[in-house]
């Protein structure tokens, strides 16, 4: 909330530098996001150039029909001649004057100047020139009690420092100027003024008809009657207070309710009594099908969970959230029923949520306002309505059930020391708590009512002590008796994958897990996405990477090689999807590169990847392979210009196939026998299967099969191909003889012949 410092000063003597106050409040109470300055600059004696003036003479400028030529007494003996463009005043008016040399709110420095041949030796001010409002239709007319020559700052708040305080959800007491003042007093050990507002004498004992049918939703309702109310604009000080605090002034009665809310934190509402059927207030839940047109002009459909303020016939306000249009205060209102109530947070929250309607009021109620605050708020409002609207206070009622007592909480100062890791003498802890309104007993504290929702346990009291000493808390480490410092296997392998890919030249990207559309029609959808582009939880990463490649292509970037490691969310049939960690990559140079990358990954991880041809909607029909862990292929040419290699692997599955630990095989003890073989097979026999079969047939001495060529020209007959590869035979136990090698070779030849009809080429 916005806290005008002059307002804060009414409750506590703020004399320290504001920057220091901001720092201490931010650390111990609520974050102050900044200081806003309103009005004219308060530097270099600038305020001294602003005076109260009295207009002695005023008449038409001899050379300009739209200007007035005035003689103004600013307490200097001789009046000053000032040219003015406004006509809402005449001789005798008390006005605000800026003298030459003054710097106005917009930063412009005023100089004496000739206007149409007449000297203007100053300026009569309108609201906007000192940022007291936006009105520029006329100048400000001040009450006549101000003597000419009085410093204008005595009459008007020419400059204001406004703290932007962002309090946390557990501190509704800090959504009030007085609450902030209480913190400042505790922080600096200063005296705090009693809370503002004292009931004036009540002029009558008219009955006030308030019926609370739902004490759960409305623990308390104070109603007060006012007669002969003169609704009109608020005085300048009140309007300035409200606008400095970020609220728009409306009329004196409404402004008072807002002022009290800002001062004390208890939202109020004022009804035009004449519009309430039988002058009655009923607090109840909404009837089924009931409607209400709220102050913002919206017709609201109500639910039986909504707490309503009703009269004898119908609902007239959404309790705690917004008043109704039909019962609002208008210029013709003469009789007012003031509501100073207390509403239960969840009730207000639920309705405000359902209607998507958040207001200054609901924002406070849903955090939990102290029910003991209502009488104070009623008193301040009553005092101001009587004072500012000339009203007579003629009746009152305070309807409530059992109000909560102050919580009493066990508190051990040594427990605070143990949790904070800092010793604070018990007396100091107790003194701090007392300044915050706690009462300290032996072994327990009783919590002030305005903190009753937040402070209910010992640990909450510990926080109250700790937050004042956060700067003193030392830097230590836990004393350890157990250690867990290592990556899991999957985490370690994931890093390996990332490092291999970056080593191969790939750039890692992060793309959103929410997409516009997913290949899987069953993919999970958000109920209320903020944009159509982020609406569905993806079940695959590749589509996002295709888009990323397309973008780079459009940008003219070269050597496009991208990968991402992220979760996908597969519909499971249950409420939660199955989340799997995937790797996807896209690269130039088509299938061969993608297969090479997959082979490189498998090789480096010591994982087995078996490829089989398998079509996939994203992929080229003939260049699409599936492995146990996912897909590898060439992107279908309709997807993106050029030949793009892609892969998407489930890392969990990939890692399952990782052989760990690697077991050393002797490769230096005995020599290798290398041979080359070529077989003629049908073209549709996958070479990968030939190699696997060869390896199986001559295990374990067949150490390595290396592909050499795939030849399909004559003399190879049509429908056939020749696959050539080299084999390396090696034994860890002995030197293989020529006979051994020949036998192994025969095993390979026989197996391939048997399984694939392969024919050894001469």
């Amino acid at each position: 909330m916005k806290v005008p410092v002059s307002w804060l000063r009414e409750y506590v003597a703020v004399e320290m530098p504001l920057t220091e106050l901001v720092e201490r409040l931010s650390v111990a109470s609520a974050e102050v996001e900044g200081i806003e300055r309103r009005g004219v600059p308060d530097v270099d004696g600038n305020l001294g150039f602003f005076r109260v003036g009295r207009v002695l003479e005023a008449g038409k400028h001899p050379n300009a029909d739209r200007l007035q030529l005035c003689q103004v007494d600013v307490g200097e003996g001789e009046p000053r001649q000032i040219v003015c463009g406004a006509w809402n005043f005449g001789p005798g008016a008390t006005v605000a004057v800026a003298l030459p040399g003054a710097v106005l709110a917009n930063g412009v420095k005023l100089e004496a100047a000739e206007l149409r041949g007449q000297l203007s030796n100053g300026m009569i001010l309108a609201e906007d020139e000192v940022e007291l409002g936006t009105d520029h239709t006329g100048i400000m007319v001040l009450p006549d009690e101000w003597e000419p020559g009085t410093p204008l700052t005595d009459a008007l708040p020419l400059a204001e420092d406004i703290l932007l305080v962002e309090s946390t959800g557990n501190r509704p007491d800090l959504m009030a100027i007085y609450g902030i003042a209480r913190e400042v007093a505790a922080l600096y050990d200063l005296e705090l003024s009693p809370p503002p507002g004292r009931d004036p004498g009540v002029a009558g004992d008219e009955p006030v008809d308030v019926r609370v049918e739902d004490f759960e939703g409305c623990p308390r309702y104070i109603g007060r009657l006012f007669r002969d109310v003169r609704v009109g604009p608020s005085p300048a000080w009140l309007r300035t207070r409200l606008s400095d605090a970020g609220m728009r002034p409306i009329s004196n009665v409404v402004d008072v309710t807002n002022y009290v809310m800002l001062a004390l934190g208890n939202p109020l509402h004022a009804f035009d009594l004449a519009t309430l059927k039988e002058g009655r207030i009923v607090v109840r839940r909404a009837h089924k099908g009931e409607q209400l047109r709220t102050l913002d002009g919206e017709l609201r459909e109500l639910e039986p969970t909504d707490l309503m303020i009703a009269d004898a016939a119908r609902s007239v306000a959404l309790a705690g959230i917004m008043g109704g249009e039909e019962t609002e205060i208008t210029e013709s209102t003469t009789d007012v029923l003031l509501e100073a109530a207390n509403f239960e947070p969840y009730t207000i929250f639920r309705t405000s949520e359902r209607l998507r309607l958040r207001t200054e009021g609901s924002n406070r109620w849903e955090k939990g306002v102290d029910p003991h605050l209502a009488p104070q708020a009623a008193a301040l409002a009553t005092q101001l309505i009587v004072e500012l609207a000339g009203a007579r206070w003629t009746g009152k009622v305070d309807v409530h059930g059992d109000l909560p007592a102050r919580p009493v909480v066990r508190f051990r100062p040594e427990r605070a020391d143990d949790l904070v890791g800092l010793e604070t003498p018990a007396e100091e802890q107790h003194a701090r708590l007392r300044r915050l309104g706690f009462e300290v007993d032996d072994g327990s504290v009783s919590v002030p009512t305005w903190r009753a929702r937040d402070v209910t346990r010992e640990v909450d009291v510990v926080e109250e002590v700790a937050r004042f000493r956060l700067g003193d808390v030392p830097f230590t480490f836990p004393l350890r008796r157990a250690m867990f410092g290592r990556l899991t296997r999957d985490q370690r392998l994931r890093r390996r994958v990332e490092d291999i890919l970056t080593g191969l030249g790939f750039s890692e990207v992060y793309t959103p897990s929410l997409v516009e559309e997913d290949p899987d029609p069953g993919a999970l959808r958000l109920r209320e996405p903020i944009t159509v582009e982020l609406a569905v939880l993806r079940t695959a990463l590749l589509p996002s990477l295709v888009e990323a490649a397309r973008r780079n292509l459009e940008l003219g970037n070269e050597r496009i090689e991208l990968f991402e490691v992220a979760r996908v969310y597969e519909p499971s049939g249950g409420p939660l999807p199955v989340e799997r960690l995937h790797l996807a990559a896209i690269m130039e140079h088509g299938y061969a590169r993608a297969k090479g990358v997959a082979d490189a990954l498998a090789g480096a991880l010591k994982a087995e990847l078996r490829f089989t041809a398998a079509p996939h909607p994203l992929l080229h029909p003939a260049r699409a392979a599936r492995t146990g862990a996912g897909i590898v292929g060439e992107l279908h040419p309709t997807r993106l210009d050029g030949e793009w290699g892609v892969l998407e692997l489930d890392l969990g599955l990939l890692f399952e196939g990782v052989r760990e630990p690697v077991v050393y095989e002797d490769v230096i003890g005995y020599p290798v026998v290398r041979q080359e073989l070529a077989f003629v097979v049908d073209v549709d026999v996958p070479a990968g299967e030939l190699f696997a079969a060869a390896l199986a047939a001559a295990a374990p001495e067949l150490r390595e099969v290396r592909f050499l060529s795939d030849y399909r020209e004559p003399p190879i007959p049509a429908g056939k191909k020749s696959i050539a590869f080299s084999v390396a035979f090696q034994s860890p136990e002995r030197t293989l003889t020529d006979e051994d090698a020949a036998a192994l070779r025969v095993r390979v030849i026989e197996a391939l012949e048997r399984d694939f009809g392969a024919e050894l080429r001469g």
Partner: protein
Amino acid sequence: MSKNREPATVAAVDAAALEQEALAAVAAASTPAELTALRTRYLGRKSELKQALRNVRDRETGMTLNAVRERLEDAFARREADLDRSELDRALSSDGFDVTLPGEELPVGQLHPTTQVRRIVEDTFLGLGYEIRDDREVETVEYNFDKLAFPPTHSSRSPRDTFFLADDVVLRTETSPSQIHHLEAREPPVYMVSIGRVYRRDAITPTRFPIFHQFEGLAVDRGITLADLKGTLLHVMRALFGDDRRVRFRTHYFPFTEPSIEPDVSCGVCGGTGCRTCKFTGWIELGGAGMVDPRVFENVGVDPEEWSGFAFGCGPERAAQLRFGISEIRPLWSTDLRVLRQF
């Protein structure tokens, strides 16, 4: 008098001078032809040395002269090799080769800045003896809010702030559900860090994106204090941003910690004196933290009188922004290689 000179002595004196003279001449020879001429002159059949050797009468003089001969042979051989090498090098250098031309272009990729930060965080906590946890991103309301003691009126429970998939299923709004999962799976003491994506229903702006990352730390042990949290966070911030960083705590509110704080790290741009990056406060917000709320312990069956703990959450994107001087969030979700190749 010359008649009386001992020949051996004369030879020895001559030999020393001769050697000096020959070595100097060899060193000065600048072409193979010159060197050949010198070889004839100093080591040829008619050379002074050879003649002297032929006239040697005593063993001592013979040894001396032979040693001189050997040293001269060596010197000639070395000089010859040098001259050959020079000649070869001259030939090799004749093509006007430019060493400043770019080398063969070898592709090297790079990890995303968020991953780079992730690794620093992981390594730092591994060093502190923590384990790393990866948890699900689609969560139940029970784990995302209820068990973390969010009050029923907490604004995060609103579909305005949180993405709902069903009445009781949300995209996790912080990594904190990991605390519950971990404490349900393990008996204290536990020390863990959970890193991953989280989701908030924020409008997309230059500085906000509804998907981002968090790392969440949890330490539960006997006697854990707020001071331990402060020391741990200082250590991590220094790992991320440098040894000159300072850390301060500000009071805050989170449903699942009490006391709750927000840690600030001193601004690296201005060093703490105030600048635009730190909004003239000298401090930069980095997340939320606090002592684990007893309600959370009760929800997972841990006795809060016996065990205490701290928890914290920070944003790797924010850290990456500070580390790499990125003022907006957009570059961190960019797939443009011109952006990525900078990291």
